[in-house]
């Protein structure tokens, strides 16, 4: 049987009732798809159930890549291909001049980690050149706070009540659509 899904926008004038609404929604097992706010709000991501970022793991891997690349590059350039004389110390082996190589290794690590993290972040958010702004309501860039919900019939009725009770200024049903059974994923909270 096909399921009806509804996209609901709950607009708030202040962050306090919005955070209250988030707590209540999550307590009754309803997933908040996204929150749009004009300024960063501490603790909101854990309230709407965003998992902890794994960007740090990426950073570590990119850093290791940087160390590897720098070592390979310096070994090839300074030792293997054309042995250089560093500060009166001829360079016949890599370990011989490690102090001189450390700054470059460090810089390369930082370079790869920083750029890798930035690119990963941008790609993960699909902030590629020419990407369209995804903010569904421009008022959230000014003075309004918005919760975006994408729910089935029973849940959307419950969510509307919760939103109104916790002080939403507007509760708008933006769109309804039908999802065939084979596309329905299990609801995750």
């Amino acid at each position, binding site marked *: 049987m096909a399921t009806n899904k509804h996209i609901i926008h709950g607009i708030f004038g202040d962050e306090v009732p919005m955070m209250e609404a988030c707590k209540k929604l999550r307590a009754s097992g309803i997933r908040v798809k996204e929150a749009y706010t004009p300024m960063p709000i*501490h603790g909101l991501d854990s309230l709407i159930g965003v998992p902890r970022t794994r960007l*740090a793991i990426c950073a570590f891997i990119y850093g290791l890549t940087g160390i590897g690349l720098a070592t390979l590059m310096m070994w090839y350039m300074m030792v293997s291909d054309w042995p250089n004389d*560093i*500060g009166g110390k001829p360079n016949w082996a890599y370990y011989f001049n490690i*102090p*001189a190589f*450390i*700054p470059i290794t460090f810089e390369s690590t930082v370079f790869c980690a920083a750029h890798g993290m930035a690119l990963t972040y941008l790609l993960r958010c699909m902030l590629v050149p020419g990407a369209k702004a995804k903010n569904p309501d421009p008022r959230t860039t000014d003075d309004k706070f918005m919760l975006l919900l994408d729910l089935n019939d029973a849940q959307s009725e419950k969510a509307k009540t919760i939103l109104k009770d916790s002080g939403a200024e507007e509760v708008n049903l933006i769109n309804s659509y039908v999802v065939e059974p084979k596309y329905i994923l299990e609801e995750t909270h």
Partner: protein
Amino acid sequence: MNTEKLNFTVPSKARMFSFGLMAVGLISIILMFLTDHVDGDPDYHNTRAWSNVFSGAFFFMALSLAAAFFLGLQYAAEAGWSTTIKRVIEAVTMYLPWGLSFMMLLFLLGQFQVHHIYHWMTPGIADATSENYDKIIAGKMGYFGVFWWVRTILYMIGWLWFTFKLRNNSIEADKLDVDINNSYHWKNIKIGAWFMVLFAVTSSTASWDWVMSIDTHWFSTLFGWYIFSGMWISALTAITILVIWLKKEGYMEFVTESTIHDMGKWMFAISFLWTYLYFSQFMLIWYADIPEEVVYFTARWENYKALMWTVFFINFALPMVMLMSRDSKRNFFFLMFVGTIIFIGHYLDVIMIVMPGTVGHHWTGLSWMEFGCFFFFLGLFIYVVLNALAKVPLRVKNHPFIQESLHHSI
């Protein structure tokens, strides 16, 4: 909120602990002076004992000075997160008069030839007819001598004035019986900013004057920052350990986990700053290969190799590996454990800075002398800081950022 313990009283256990440390330290200092001599070297006058006393006096003085710097920095940057632990930072700065008194005493004793930590204080060193004549030091005597003493006294007066002003303003602000009055805060922002200006110059020059001049022939402009980073990380670990201990004792429940997480981040970051400067100094000298520069590291490499590597590993590799993850910075026991090791590591760093210039090749490795002396100063430091902490409420009342700090969450 009524059950919150806002007034700290020094627990008798902590008081006994500090007295015990001081007693053990005092006994070992006396034993150290009685036993410290080198057979067949009549020029060796208790040098190691004096150097140990100097290291202890300097380390804890520098630590409380760096705490004053950190406090000034919080004001100058108008930082809100640290407001809840401000009283702890202030308490740590209150050791500064003690530390400076020890330093002054040591300087005076050196001037009157009781010890020979500073080679340039030797009489006749700039006199071409004297047998003590040293041409290189004679060329630097414009910088040492009277000018050195003038600078030393100016540093001490300046630092003490700023430290006491910052703390007294903060205490005065507490007495105001109004909801919001920022007048003292604005004063402290100005004082903190000016302290940054003074400290930027004097932390460098003071470390040249007081520490680098032990190796009088050698000089490095980077040295001041190296000492500064070392004292900064020591101050941060001391503050963190103290805050966690107070939390464990049931005080300071208002300090959020995030504030301590931030302190962990500072410890992590400044460990890297220290390593950066430690390594830079080595690398530049290694690279340059100039004999009069290399002599500094040759002395350390030949007789202090184990200490040098120990200091490098426990002050760099250990905090890097252990404090990198978010969870480790939020585990109080873990943070305290790593902090203690870093704290000892930086004391060893001071030992490694001082000893080669004074004890030189007579060094026989770490012994009870170093630890005994450390215990004495540690005991005194704990005693002074806890007493300073007990004098005022643990929570600042009239501070514009206190609410921000109470709800700090990252």
